[in-house]
């Protein structure tokens, strides 16, 4: 894939990229379907019940049936809604979520583009979907969704900064923004991963990432017990599916990013285990991150808006800055 990118852009290359793009789209859609199924099963097990079991063996086809239902369902647009924005909002919410996956290296060879500003690319694109959510909240002309939209705008903006700052420590250690070099910078023994030198950065990153996804301790925009369903209350049919898709693709993206940045991408935890291919390690770490997100959703209550803001600005931000400062000092002392 890399040498293809270096060559001049001909029709033939373009078609190959498109082909790979579609293949990857189906991989991600497959992941989303079974992430939803896996989440419902895990949360079910955690609540002493079985989760979906009726459709297909162990309920495998449940999510496929759901998506099929959403496809067939009528796509209602509220009369007084702002039609253009209403239709545009899910697109704006979903496209960056999928575009962000381009720079994530899965194994030493497998990976799409290897931008040298991979991390910056990720942070920039992921904040565009905030606009999509705010647009959805405003366009559906519903008070609840307006509240949901406003809340999510406040939340995402105030958690974007700690998310990015918490990663600056790693960048300083590796000296480059490219995700591939960050992974190569981590050794194949688990104590050489970025996790341990950057443990503080890791904590801030996890909290900010969960809040970025609007998931449970911070799922304020679509707080079902208060705002009924938040910004996507007026959406139905396939447009609603877009928002669900966007949410779960972000789960994919954030888990992949955590694996790459902190858990050493495709490196095995112990050097001796090198014989097992890197992709398997990547998938293992990746699914642990996904499981952790579902685990949080099953246990934790929701945080209040003002507590969310104060946590974001008064707690995470200073810790992230302190982490950068400490990393800088350590680099200065140890690099000599």
């Amino acid at each position: 894939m890399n040498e293809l990118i270096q060559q001049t852009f001909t029709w033939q290359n373009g078609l190959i990229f498109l082909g790979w793009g579609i293949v990857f789209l189906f991989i991600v859609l497959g992941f989303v379907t079974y992430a939803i199924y896996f989440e419902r099963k895990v949360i079910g097990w955690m609540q002493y019940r079985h989760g979906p079991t009726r459709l297909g063996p162990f309920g495998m086809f449940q999510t496929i049936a759901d998506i099929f239902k959403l496809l067939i369902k009528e796509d209602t647009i509220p009369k007084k809604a702002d039609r253009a924005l209403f239709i545009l909002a899910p697109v704006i919410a979903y496209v960056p979520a999928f575009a962000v996956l381009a720079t994530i290296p899965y194994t030493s060879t497998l990976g799409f583009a290897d931008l040298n500003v991979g991390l910056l690319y990720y942070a920039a694109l992921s904040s565009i979907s905030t606009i999509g959510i705010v647009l959805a909240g405003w366009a559906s002309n519903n008070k609840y969704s307006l509240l949901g939209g406003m809340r999510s705008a406040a939340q995402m903006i105030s958690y974007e900064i700690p998310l990015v700052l918490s990663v600056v420590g790693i960048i300083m250690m590796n000296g480059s923004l490219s995700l591939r070099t960050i992974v190569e910078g981590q050794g194949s023994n688990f104590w050489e991963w970025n996790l341990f030198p950057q443990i503080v950065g890791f904590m801030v990153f996890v909290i900010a990432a969960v809040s970025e996804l609007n998931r449970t301790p911070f799922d304020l925009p679509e707080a079902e017990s208060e705002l009924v369903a938040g910004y996507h209350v007026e959406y139905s049919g396939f447009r609603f599916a877009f928002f669900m898709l966007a949410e779960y693709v972000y789960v994919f993206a954030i888990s992949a990013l955590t694996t790459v940045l902190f858990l050493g991408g495709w490196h095995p935890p112990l050097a001796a285990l090198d014989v097992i291919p890197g992709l398997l390690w990547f998938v293992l770490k990746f699914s642990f991150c996904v499981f952790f997100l579902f685990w949080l959703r099953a246990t934790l209550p929701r945080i209040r808006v003002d507590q969310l803001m104060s946590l974001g600005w008064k707690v995470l931000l200073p810790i992230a800055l302190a982490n950068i400062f400490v990393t800088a000092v350590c680099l200065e002392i140890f690099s000599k």
Partner: protein
Amino acid sequence: MKGLIQGLGVTLKALTSKKVTYRYPDVPLTMPDRFRGIQYLDPDKCIVCNQCARICPTDCITLTGKPNPDPEAKGKVVDTFDLNFETCILCDLCTEVCPTEAIVMTNQFELAAYSRDDLFKDRKWLSENTSLIRQDNNGAFMLPKGGGKKDA
């Protein structure tokens, strides 16, 4: 943080523990004997004393009697017995006052109907509703009054 981690521990333990839900539509659910489902009427026990129609808080029982066909037996025999299941609240007062235990509750709890007029149960339907009849009718509450012996 300690509380959060404790909470996560509880849910993790629940992940692997035995589940408590039962597979109702596939596995039929058995109710205890005293469960109050839809009524069963034994027409020949009924002496048309109208007690059940009077006690019913929502007045959903209407019954008419006709004089006993064979001349020497006195008293009346039940002709039509309509139970308007739309308003019946399954409070079990009718079986309580019935002196001859003609009307008895069954454990049948699947009571949904596709149209409202299925809900008007007539005497024929009630007498055929013989599945899972309740045995222990007001056992400790009172001795069976009137003719009906406690044959259960």
